[in-house]
C-alpha cells in the first residue's frame, strides 16, 4: 500500500506529465505484484515461455538468411518505395495510437480532472516518441537478425535501415501532427463519426425471424476496416509485392490480396459478433438452428464477394479455372470449419480460435499429402461441430 508520504511526494512533483503516466506505472506494478502472488502459475509460464523461445531460436537458426538477404537487397534498391511503405505504416500507427490516447484523456475517466493542457500535450508527445522509437528498434532488430543469419556481406543493411527509419519517423511525425490538429478542434470531433449505412441494402441477408444480425456483422467489419485493423497486412503486402510484373498481373495480385485481407477481417468480425449476440440473447428462447441461420448469412455473402474478387484477380494472372475453383473452395471450407467451431464454442471464443487454427492446419496437411480426402475431412469436422453446437443449450 503506498504511504501518505509517497502521495505527498507525488503531489509536490510539478505536473509535467499527465497523471495517466502514473496510472500506467501503478497498473504495471499491480500486475507484477499479482504475478508474484500467483508464483506457481508465473513459474510455469516462464518455463513454457523459455521453452517456446528456445524452439523459436532453433527455428530461426534454420532460416536461410542469405535468401532473405537477397530479397532485402532487392528491396534496398528501391529506397523511395521502402520509405513510402514505412511512412504509411508509421502514419497509421502513430495516428491511431495517439488518437486513442487523446480520446481516453479527454473523454475517459480523466475527462473532468484538472490537468494542465501542457501536461497533456507533453504526455502525448512522449507517447508518440516512445512508440516510434520502439517501432524503429523492432525494425532494426529484425534486420540485424537477418544480418546475423546471413553468410554474405549485408551491404543492403544500412541503406534499407536508413530508408525504413526515415520513412517511419516522417510518417509518425505526420500522424502525430494530424492528431494534434484534431485535438485543437472541438472535443466531440474526437469521437470518429462513422457513416455505416450500406451502399446497397441487401434485404435477403436479413433472417426473417432474426433480422439485423447480418447488418451488425457488416457494421462491425466496417468499423474495424476503417480503424485500420489490418494495416499491418497491407504493409506486408506492400513489402512483398513483386516488382517487374505486367500491369494487369499486378492488378490481379492486388485484387486477390485485398479480397483475402478483407475477407479475413469480415470473418473474424462476424465470429466476434456471434459471441456477443450469444451473450445478448442468452435469456431468449432462441433455437440454435435459427441463430446459426441468422449469423451465417453475412459471412456467406462475404465469402461470395471474396471468391468473385479473388477469382477475377487469379484470372488476370492467367490462372486456370481449376485453380480459381480450388481457391474459392479452399477459403469456403476453411471458413465453414471456423464458423462451425465458433458456434460450438460460442461461450468460449478462445478455444474456437485455437481449434480452428489447429484443424485448418490439419486439413491443409491432408490436402498436401492426400488431396481428395481434405474436403471430406473438412466437411466431416464441420458437421460434427455443428451437431455438437446444436446439442448445447
Amino acid at each position: 500500500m503506498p504511504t501518505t508520504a509517497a502521495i505527498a511526494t507525488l503531489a509536490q512533483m510539478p505536473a509535467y506529465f499527465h497523471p495517466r503516466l502514473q496510472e500506467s506505472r501503478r497498473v504495471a506494478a499491480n500486475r507484477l505484484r499479482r504475478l508474484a502472488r500467483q508464483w506457481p502459475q508465473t513459474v510455469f509460464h516462464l518455463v513454457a515461455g523459455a521453452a517456446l523461445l528456445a524452439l523459436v531460436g532453433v527455428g530461426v537458426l534454420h532460416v536461410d538468411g542469405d535468401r532473405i538477404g537477397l530479397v532485402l537487397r532487392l528491396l534496398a534498391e528501391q529506397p523511395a518505395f521502402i520509405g513510402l511503405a514505412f511512412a504509411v505504416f508509421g502514419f497509421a500507427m502513430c495516428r491511431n495510437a495517439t488518437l486513442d490516447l487523446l480520446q481516453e484523456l479527454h473523454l475517459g475517466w480523466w475527462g473532468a480532472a484538472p490537468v494542465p493542457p501542457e501536461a497533456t500535450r507533453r504526455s502525448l508527445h512522449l507517447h508518440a516518441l516512445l512508440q516510434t522509437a520502439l517501432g524503429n528498434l523492432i525494425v532494426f532488430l529484425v534486420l540485424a537478425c537477418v544480418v546475423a543469419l546471413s553468410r554474405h556481406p549485408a551491404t543492403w543493411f544500412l541503406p534499407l535501415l536508413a530508408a525504413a527509419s526515415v520513412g517511419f519517423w516522417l510518417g509518425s511525425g505526420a500522424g502525430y501532427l494530424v492528431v494534434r490538429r484534431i485535438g485543437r478542434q472541438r472535443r466531440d470531433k474526437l469521437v470518429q463519426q462513422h457513416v455505416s449505412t450500406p451502399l446497397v441494402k441487401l434485404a435477403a441477408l436479413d433472417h426473417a425471424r432474426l433480422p439485423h444480425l447480418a447488418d451488425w456483422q457488416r457494421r462491425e467489419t466496417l468499423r474495424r476496416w476503417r480503424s485500420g485493423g489490418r494495416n499491418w497486412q497491407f504493409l506486408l503486402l506492400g513489402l512483398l509485392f513483386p516488382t517487374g510484373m505486367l500491369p494487369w498481373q499486378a492488378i490481379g495480385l492486388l485484387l486477390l490480396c485485398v479480397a483475402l485481407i478483407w475477407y479475413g477481417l469480415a470473418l473474424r468480425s462476424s465470429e466476434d459478433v456471434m459471441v456477443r449476440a450469444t451473450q445478448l440473447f442468452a435469456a431468449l428462447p432462441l433455437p440454435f438452428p435459427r441463430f446459426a441461420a441468422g449469423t451465417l448469412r453475412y459471412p456467406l455473402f462475404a465469402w461470395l464477394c471474396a471468391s468473385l474478387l479473388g477469382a477475377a484477380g487469379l484470372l488476370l494472372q492467367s490462372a486456370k479455372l481449376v485453380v480459381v475453383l480450388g481457391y474459392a473452395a479452399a477459403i469456403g471450407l476453411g471458413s465453414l470449419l471456423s464458423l462451425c467451431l465458433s458456434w460450438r464454442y460460442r461461450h468460449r471464443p478462445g478455444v474456437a480460435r485455437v481449434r480452428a487454427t489447429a484443424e485448418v492446419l490439419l486439413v491443409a496437411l491432408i490436402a498436401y499429402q492426400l488431396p481428395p480426402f481434405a474436403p471430406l475431412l473438412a466437411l466431416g469436422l464441420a458437421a460434427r461441430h455443428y451437431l455438437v453446437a446444436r446439442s448445447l443449450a
Partner: protein
Amino acid sequence: MPALEIAGLVHAYGTHRVLEGVDLRLQPGEFAALIGPNGSGKTTLLRCLAGILQPQQGRIAIAGADMRSDTLAAKQRLGFAVDPTLLPALLTGRQCLELFAGARELGAIPAATLELAEALAFTRWLDHEVQAYSLGTRQKLGILLGLIGEPPLIVLDEPMNGLDPLSAFALKQHLVRLTREHGCAVLLATHALEVAERFISRCVLLLGGRLVQDWDTAALDAIRHDPDTSLEQVMVEALQRFGAPRND
C-alpha cells in the same frame, strides 16, 4: 459569485441539436436536481459543464472561472463523479483516489473522503482492484472521485443507480452537509425524484434542450406541505404540460 453560471449554451451532435440555449445559475449552498425525460440532454449538459464536451455556443463559468478560456481553474473548482464504466479495471480504489488527489494537488486522500468511504461501506474495497467490484461498488468509487477535495461545485449524474438504501441515504446526508456547512453547490441529474425529494432546495426541468421550468425552495416547500400532491406528481404534470416526448 455563483458556483455555476451557464449562459446561452448550445450543443449539437452533427446536425442533431441537443441543447438549445440553456441558461442556469447556481448559488453556493444550493442543492439542485436536474430532471428531464430520457434523451432530453441532461448528460450532454453535464458533460459540457465538466469540460468533457465543448459546446458550439454559450458560456460556462465554474465559481467565476470560464470553462473555455481558463479550463484548468474551472476544473479545479468542479467535482464530477466518474462514470463507473470508465474506471480503470486494474487499479485499486485507493490508487484511483490517490491519483485524483494528486491531480487535485492534495497531499493525500482527504480524511473527509475516507470518512465518506466508510459511510458508504466502501472501506473494505479500497485495496481491491476495480475489476472485482460490483456495479454499486464502482458507483461508490465514481462518486468518491467526484467529491474528492470538496470543490465549490459538485456534479453527479444519476448517483443513486445501484446504491443500496443505506449508502444512498449516507450519500444524500453527506451532500446536504456539504451544501449547508461548506457552501458547496450540488447539481444532481436524476430520474428518481423520490430519492432527492426531501433534500433538494431547487429543481429544474430540461426538455427539448431547454430549461422549461424552475422550482425554487419556496415552490418545493409548498409542494411538500400540500398533502394532496407530491413532487413527482407536479413533475409529471409539468412534463405533460410541456408535451414531453417519450424517447425511451
